[in-house]
């Protein structure tokens, strides 16, 4: 079965993934976080004790399901290839950049689309930054940017991340070793079995449809190709209908219940860094998890970068805070990006430029 050969099938894959996200939001995942890759990797880093932010610690079965879903479907359809060797440490750094940018904005590109579908205007503002970031990455590609070739490696190497994910699932289910939030977003989740099945289905469809949030806009910018954008369109429409039906569609900034902030410039710059780094890494955070599942150790190193970035964000106070109601005073406290986060975000963008214009295809070894 090939889901990537027609726009209809691609839109269908987007719809299925949208339904999964909507279901999980309905059954308990945090309001319009639904299936945010950056948030969930951050929660998972917390569950492993990589950071101590008590409100965001939970071994999200969605992430485990995504990687394993892509792993299983790629084995079943003979697309599994264990590869490695395309500038792994640069990819690690790009993973860190993607996570820091995401936590300055408060969401990965997937959550940006989900927030857009809920009428959150801050996400629409961030989209400007994301498109600019992707376009800068596309410009670098036109100028000959490349991280070089990957090569086939031992079959087992590509299976390491899926196996680690299964290991984390077993630890979460059978032991009390991992941390789990008792309050805050980390404590809000759909039943484990639903989250896991949702992740597996999402992972399988994302693998077959090549769903990628950075790739969709990159393809439009670079080659006027709208195929991948159709997948995102399908997901957006389903989430829009879900939000309208549930009365969660509220147009505005600072919508109560949406973990977001209204610092426009940092919403734009955060997503600029994410879009730029994602194009350089060959895909958005979701796509990195999927590629890691189908055997790419390079993508797996990017995923490790995401985990490392999440730890940095919360240990060094880089992550933005969301606008929230103070329960005692009943006053709305506006969310903000801390100074450390602003400095980190600017450094991330500089790092992207350095990587983009120092890695050329011509100089890469054949």
């Amino acid at each position, binding site marked *: 079965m*090939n889901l*990537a*050969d027609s726009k209809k099938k691609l839109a269908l894959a987007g719809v299925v993934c949208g339904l999964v996200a909507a279901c999980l939001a309905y059954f308990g995942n945090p309001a319009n976080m639904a299936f945010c890759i950056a948030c969930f990797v951050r929660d998972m880093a917390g569950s492993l004790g990589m950071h101590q932010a008590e409100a965001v610690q939970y071994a999200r079965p969605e992430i485990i399901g995504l990687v394993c879903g892509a792993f299983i479907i790629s084995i079943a*359809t*003979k*697309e599994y*290839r264990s*590869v490695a*060797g*395309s500038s792994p440490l640069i990819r690690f750094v790009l993973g860190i950049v993607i996570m820091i940018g995401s936590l300055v904005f408060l969401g990965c590109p997937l959550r940006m689309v989900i927030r857009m579908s809920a009428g959150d205007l801050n996400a629409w503002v961030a989209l400007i930054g994301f498109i600019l970031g992707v376009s800068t990455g596309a410009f670098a*590609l*036109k100028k000959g940017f*490349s*991280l*070089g*070739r*990957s*090569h*086939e490696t031992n079959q087992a190497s590509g299976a390491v991340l899926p196996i680690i994910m299964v290991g984390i699932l077993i630890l979460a289910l059978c032991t009390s070793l991992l941390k789990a939030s008792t309050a805050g977003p980390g404590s809000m989740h759909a039943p484990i079995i639903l989250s896991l099945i949702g992740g597996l289905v999402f992972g399988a469809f994302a693998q077959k449809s*090549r769903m990628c949030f950075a*790739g969709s806009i*990159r*393809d439009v910018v*670079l*080659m006027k190709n709208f*195929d991948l954008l159709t997948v995102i369109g399908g997901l957006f429409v389903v989430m829009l209908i879900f939000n309208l039906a549930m009365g969660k569609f509220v147009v505005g900034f600072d919508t109560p219940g949406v973990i977001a902030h209204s610092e426009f410039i940092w919403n734009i710059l955060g997503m600029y860094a994410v879009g730029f780094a994602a194009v350089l*890494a*060959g*895909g958005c955070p979701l796509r990195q998890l999927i590629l890691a599942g189908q055997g790419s150790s390079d993508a797996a190193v990017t995923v490790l970068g995401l985990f490392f970035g999440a730890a940095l964000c919360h240990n060094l106070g880089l992550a933005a805070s969301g606008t929230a109601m103070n329960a005692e005073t009943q006053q709305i406290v506006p969310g903000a990006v801390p100074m450390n986060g602003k400095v980190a975000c600017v450094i991330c963008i500089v790092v992207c430029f350095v990587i983009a214009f120092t890695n050329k*295809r011509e100089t890469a070894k*054949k």
Partner: protein
Amino acid sequence: MKEVDARGLSCPEPLMMTAEALKNADGPIKVLVSEAHQKTNVEKFAKDRGKKATTTEKGSEFEIVIE
């Protein structure tokens, strides 16, 4: 025949290299890729431009002739 070796490269490099080669080539070109999704992308790219793409599997990699 002009050959494009895009094996092991990340998206969208194989497509960009194919596009570049097609622009400068008179006759058919041969594109080598290693991942299934890149094979599909190159085939679709050729089809969208009214060209014929013939793919053969070479071990775990793919050879696509576009004419």
